[in-house]
């Protein structure tokens, strides 16, 4: 589904966005003291006087060569800036998924098995609260009560995740981000499991004398996972939104925080690069989801 036209479309949107920027990039680059002739020279040098489609073709060519321009503020290549921030963001997302998805699936399974009971209602109530809570409130509460009490660090990334300091510093951001993700996963698992539990092959398995939990886990859950994987893939976009907020709150040096910083300081090439890498990353995740899909459901691979 994620195909070349979609990628081109994303690139075009990213490119056009910067075309309607009210501030003239040449003026910004030239600085406040530049004369009109100097601005004009920079405009030509940057190719801003050529027709739009030529500029877009040039932009595509540069993107293919991983040349995303230079940051207007640090004057370093945007690609370098992205390379620095990319891994912390991936780290944060993985640290969130690694606890939130298993917990969500377990809660969803429990709710489906105990359908209609207080346990089910409590889990579903928690899940609707989870999708309704602003991610920054979770972060603020954790900063106030856990960070404020000096229990865990809440300012920045103190190292890669495999070092003790790094691991400690990722806990609060990962808990914040994951808190809004458990709910949708639990809910989707429950709905999907309830559907598969009514399927013929589940009845057959039960008739053959398999135990209740064995039927749930071995027969129903694997089939129920298909929509759940889709949801997790689709929700990566939602997670991305959460991570922009989380990174900004916890001073986590990721792509999202960089994007917000670039926008508020009008650093257009950096903002464009950050937005592009977020979009491409999102599409890459969807591709992985498609592959996972075929693994979970061999019928898809065959067709």
């Amino acid at each position, binding site marked *: 589904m994620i195909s070349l036209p979609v990628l081109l479309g994303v690139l075009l949107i990213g490119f056009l966005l910067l075309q309607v920027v009210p501030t003239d990039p040449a003026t910004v680059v030239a600085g406040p003291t530049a004369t009109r002739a100097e601005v004009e020279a920079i405009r030509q040098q940057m190719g801003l006087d050529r027709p739009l489609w030529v500029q877009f073709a040039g932009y595509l060519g540069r993107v293919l060569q991983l040349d995303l321009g230079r940051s207007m503020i640090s004057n370093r290549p945007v690609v370098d800036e992205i390379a620095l921030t990319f891994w912390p963001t991936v780290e944060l997302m993985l640290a969130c998924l690694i606890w939130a998805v298993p917990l969500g699936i377990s809660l969803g399974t429990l709710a489906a098995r105990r359908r209609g009971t207080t346990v089910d209602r409590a889990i579903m109530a928690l899940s609707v609260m989870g999708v309704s809570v*602003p991610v920054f409130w979770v972060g603020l509460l954790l900063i106030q009560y856990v960070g404020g009490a000096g229990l865990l660090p809440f300012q920045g990334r103190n190292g890669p995740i495999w070092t003790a300091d790094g691991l400690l510093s990722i806990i609060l951001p990962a808990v914040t981000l994951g808190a809004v993700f458990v709910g949708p996963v639990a809910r989707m698992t429950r709905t999907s499991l309830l559907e598969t539990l009514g399927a013929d092959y589940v009845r057959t398995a039960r008739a053959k004398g398999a135990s209740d939990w064995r039927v749930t886990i071995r027969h129903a859950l694997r089939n129920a996972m298909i929509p759940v994987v889709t949801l997790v893939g689709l929700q990566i976009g939602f997670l991305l*939104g959460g991570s922009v907020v989380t990174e900004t709150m916890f001073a986590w040096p990721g792509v999202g925080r960089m994007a917000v910083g670039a926008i508020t300081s009008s650093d257009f090439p950096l903002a464009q690069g950050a937005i592009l890498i977020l979009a491409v990353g999102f599409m890459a995740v969807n591709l992985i989801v498609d592959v996972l899909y075929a693994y979970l459901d061999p019928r898809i691979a065959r067709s």
Partner: protein
Amino acid sequence: MTDAALSVQSSADQRAIAALRRKNAVWRRILKDPPAAAATIFLFLIVAAAILAPWIAPFDPYSNNMRLRLCPIGGARCPDYLLGADNQGRDMLSRILFGLRATLGMGVTAVAIGGGLGALIGLSAAYFKRLDQPLMRLIDVLLSFPSILFGLAIAAVLGTGLGSLVIALSIAAVPSIARIARGAAQSIMQQEYMEAGRAVGLGDTALIWRYLALNCWPTILIYMTLQLGQAILLGAALSFLGLGAQPPTAELGSMAADGRKFLSIAPHVSTIPCAAIFLVVLTFNVLGDALRDALDPKLRQ
């Protein structure tokens, strides 16, 4: 990948349309479910508070009094301020009421614009078969752009502010509503009265407005309501990041961000707006779930 999800969605829509014919039964069902009934009542209160804010707010949300700075709830310095005062000594209760107005207004405007546009795209795609492919590919591109990125990109281009925020939220609402509208319209297109309308010589415009749109709007409207919670949550997050409403505007997200600096000495300044956003979004989500359950006979058993 989403095709499977989509077909589920559109069959759910068909059921929804059928169920709407039994509208009274639906309302009875919702009111019998205690959380949904509570959410319905609460929604009326929220909307009333937002609309009536200028008349019911006890104080001016923008008049500051530095002597009452960060006065806690029930503090002796500010006996008249029921929810305390913020970092400028402004009445929190009045600011919450006005903030609710701004936040809800932002969400409703965005979903109305984006939803209207999405509905138009969806209906056109279903009616004009030739437009279906190009329009839906465009929607795919929009869908593959996570909504937070619209917020970032629009803020990058147009600058930060409530206007940019509404534009971003509108664009974010377009693709999902376009898909729902197309799904609903496609099932209507197969109805015999569409053919009958054409046979008696009605033009495209009449067929679209009087036959197609008229039969699709309940589904679209319900879906737009469901989107409101999402739009408000995203808008609040963008405001919190400083990309939306700017201080001193009373808007819940930016109020929460404002209070962040005083978290350790006056937590109420950020906690109250956060809790308000949570309650508003929760209300929409609980109501949305109940509506979906009530309209989907398959889940009813």
